[in-house]
């Protein structure tokens, strides 16, 4: 038995108290850390919100540099707040700090690729950087992106902005594609309807534009702008009389508007020179055709005088032909065919003029342009 009592004693157990103490310290530290982190988060959020509101206020007051500083502070304090970041990006784009805005936009889009406003700002940024194709891409993403608050209204607004952008770039087909879905969306907003109607004109769809203007006039018969727009649409359609009536109505509601008066004069001139109305005598049609031919010839001469165009044989040939037609009276009486020949020559001269000097044409050639447009239809 004594031999057994001298056997190796069991290994010394660890101090359980030490383990308990460590567990207690860990729990205590975790609680302290959580408390401190929560307190810090709350304070940081409060400071960030304050800076954000300051930034917005300063921006509204036109103090853009100070606004950016405040918004930057808000963003630095609360990096994950997308709203603060987007406001900063907007302000940076407004001050043409595109390179700084670009990093932030990329950051937001990485985090929230479907954020509607971020995509819209990316489109703005692309426009500022001269990347129109990319801008179009981001506009489309913005239209179909996620929006806070009234998402439908935001989407309409972005689509309208995209339409304006396409109109500026003269992309008529794409513009029309954007305008058609907007028709139903803007039906209760007269200002938007008016804008839409104008965009239809820019998209080369004067009939739709005229319909839109008429809808607006039906809702408010005193809307001079709508009448003027309708007049423009009818001019584009070649309906000069209808256009004149619309301009008269516009002038009645806005008699002092010089642009409406100019349009009125233009429509009068077009009615007087238009060679296409039915029941027009051959002599009158021929007279109008010659008037158009002479205008076209003068236009080409003026255009050719500005550059080396006169040395081209074709230009000289066309001018000679025009002179010959103008000066030689038909021997066997005036016929519809002779008038048509004069008009064809006028059209050819016009095309050459456009080819040499391009568009847009000067104001005094607007009537000729519209007539030619109608003839080409």
């Amino acid at each position: 038995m004594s031999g057994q009592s001298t056997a190796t004693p069991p290994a010394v157990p660890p101090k359980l108290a030490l383990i308990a103490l460590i567990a207690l310290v860990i729990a205590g530290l975790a609680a302290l850390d959580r408390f401190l982190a929560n307190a810090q988060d709350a304070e940081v959020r409060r400071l960030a919100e304050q800076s954000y509101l300051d930034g917005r206020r300063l921006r509204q007051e036109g103090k853009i540099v100070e606004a950016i500083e405040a918004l930057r502070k808000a963003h630095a304090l609360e990096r994950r707040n997308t709203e603060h970041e987007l406001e900063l990006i907007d302000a940076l784009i407004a001050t043409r700090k595109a390179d700084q805005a670009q990093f932030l936009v990329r950051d937001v889009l990485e985090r929230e690729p479907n954020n509607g406003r971020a995509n819209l700002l990316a489109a703005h940024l692309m426009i500022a950087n001269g990347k129109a194709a990319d801008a179009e891409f981001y506009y489309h993403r913005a239209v179909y992106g996620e929006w806070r608050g009234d998402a439908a209204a935001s989407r309409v607004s972005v689509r309208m902005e995209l339409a304006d952008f396409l109109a500026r770039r003269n992309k008529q087909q794409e513009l029309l594609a954007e305008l058609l879905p907007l028709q139903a969306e803007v039906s209760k907003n007269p200002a938007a309807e008016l804008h839409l109607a104008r965009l239809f004109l820019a998209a080369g769809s004067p009939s739709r534009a005229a319909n839109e203007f008429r809808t607006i006039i039906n809702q408010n018969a005193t809307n001079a702008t709508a009448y003027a727009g309708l007049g423009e649409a009818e001019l584009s359609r070649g309906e000069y009389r209808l256009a004149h009536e619309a301009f008269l109505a516009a002038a009645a509601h806005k008699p002092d508007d010089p642009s409406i008066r100019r349009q009125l004069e233009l429509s009068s001139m077009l009615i007087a020179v238009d060679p296409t109305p039915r029941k027009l005598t051959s002599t009158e049609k021929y007279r109008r055709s010659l008037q158009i031919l002479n205008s076209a010839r003068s236009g080409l001469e003026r255009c050719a005088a500005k550059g080396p165009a006169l040395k081209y044989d074709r230009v000289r040939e066309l001018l000679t032909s025009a002179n010959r037609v103008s000066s030689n009276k038909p021997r066997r009486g005036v016929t519809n065919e002779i008038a048509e020949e004069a008009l064809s020559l006028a059209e050819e001269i016009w095309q050459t003029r456009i080819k040499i000097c391009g568009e847009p044409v000067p104001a005094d050639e607007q009537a000729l342009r519209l007539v030619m447009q109608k003839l080409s239809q």
Partner: protein
Amino acid sequence: MIAKPSFRAKLWNWTGFANREDQLSMLLSLVIGVLVGLTVVAFILLTGRLAARMYPPGSAAWRRMLVPVTGTLVSGYLLFRYFPNARGSGIPQAKFALFIQEGYISLRTVIGKFVCCSISLASGIALGREGPSVQIGAGIASVLGRRFGLSKSNVKALVPVGCSAALAAAFNTPIAAVLFSLEEILGDLHAPVLGSVVLSSATSWMVLHLILGDEPLFHTPAWQLVNPLEFAIYAVLGVVGGLASVCFVKLLLKLRIWFRALPQNTVWAQPVAGGILMGVFGLFVPEVLGVGYDYVDRVLGGDFPVKTVALLAVMKIIATPACYSSGNAGGIFGPSLFIGAMVGGTIGSVAHVLLPHVTANPGAYALVGMGAAFAGIVRTPLTSVIMIFEMTRDYSIIVPLMISNLISFFISQQLQREPIYEALALQEGVYLPTGESREELAGIRVSDVMQPNANPLPLDATIGTAKSRFEEEKSTSWPAGDPHHLQGVISSHQIETSNPPPDTIRDLIKADGSYPYVHVDHPLSYALELMRDNAVDVVPVVSRANIRQMNGVITLNGILSTYGIGNAGSAGKAR
């Protein structure tokens, strides 16, 4: 009667921890990771909360003068009176503990470092929190190791584990933390504690993320190379970063010598000198106060006036050495990143003005500048590259980063021979082994000293023949067997002590067939260890593919001759 073991003792034995310290150390690495992570997070948050209280938004300018002075006065007194070992950065102190004090760091030092650094850093002095965190982490590891009754060697092994956990939490870069512990603290990238270091770093990082979320320390822009010409600008950045690093280190060391020469009874007040300088600087340029990570973030975003950035770089190069040398508690890790960002931002801005179409946003240069300054000041090029890589998570930045870092490292190495932490230790009269010195020591390999044409003694050789060979080779031992089938190493000591006396040397071969050996690529130090452990002065050099294939021998005399010491002396001295 047998004393019945208690349940606790049974459990302890069952887990195997009673006899296996290594397992306990590994488990402690996890605990250290959690504890250090929580402590460092508390340290970061507490310092931030204190700083926010000291400098509330829109506070008066006088605060910027008064707070640093008061803060350094309070922390200076506490350091002098209660916590003398908590002074300084924390990284040299952790290395002292590791290499000199058998891994000992007292709990008082840990508490002192936490309290004093919280006060001094919150008061706005230009020092960082990472160095102190490292000492706190190392201290917690040391305390835990001792309290659990680990052996001194295991306590010592826990020090880098604590360092790594602290750095991972303080800097949110777990891989760089592991590398830093190996590259700077241990000075050995092949250290056997790698597993524990990684474990604690990962654990601590997880704790950080659980509490503070996935928010990086710096928000860096996506880097892109605009034009290959930028590589040249990054090289220039490396040169400027290296020169700035040298200025910083030299100024810090000079100022420290100057402060150390002051009378001992002024030690408690010396930190105030740093506080006064910070107050004056802060009065005119508030951005210089504190470690300045907020401003670094702005510079990385590319938003800054270049004159301010250049001015801040210069001011920080002056302010941090002054604060550190005067005896304040805080590190130089953070300030070195600040200086790098400012230098990089300045170079990037100038380059962007001169060559706008071929250069990226100046923020990208600030980012690379951080790595360059870190590599130049702390002299851990690998850590600096990985650290910036971890911050950006952008692989494409690696090449310019390596260019700048290596140039900065090279320039710093040429103009300031001693790395900063070793130079600081030398001022204390302590020689710490550096990574570089280890490399130098390990530079001589077995292959440099090996005698390639040595033949082993045949197994049937008589004892007389063996003794003749010993005399001939001026050694006390020699390999035995066939050159293609080595059997062992016999020594004169074996011959003398063998009972009954052997007839041939076959009788001296160990039954288990084991014998000491080295390979050609082993360091000499390893060969010396083998000689000591096996009481021989000759070790066979064998093939890595077949340890029975002898390629030569390495002798003690040969090793000593290599170091220019001459003959080792007569037989038996190896013992």
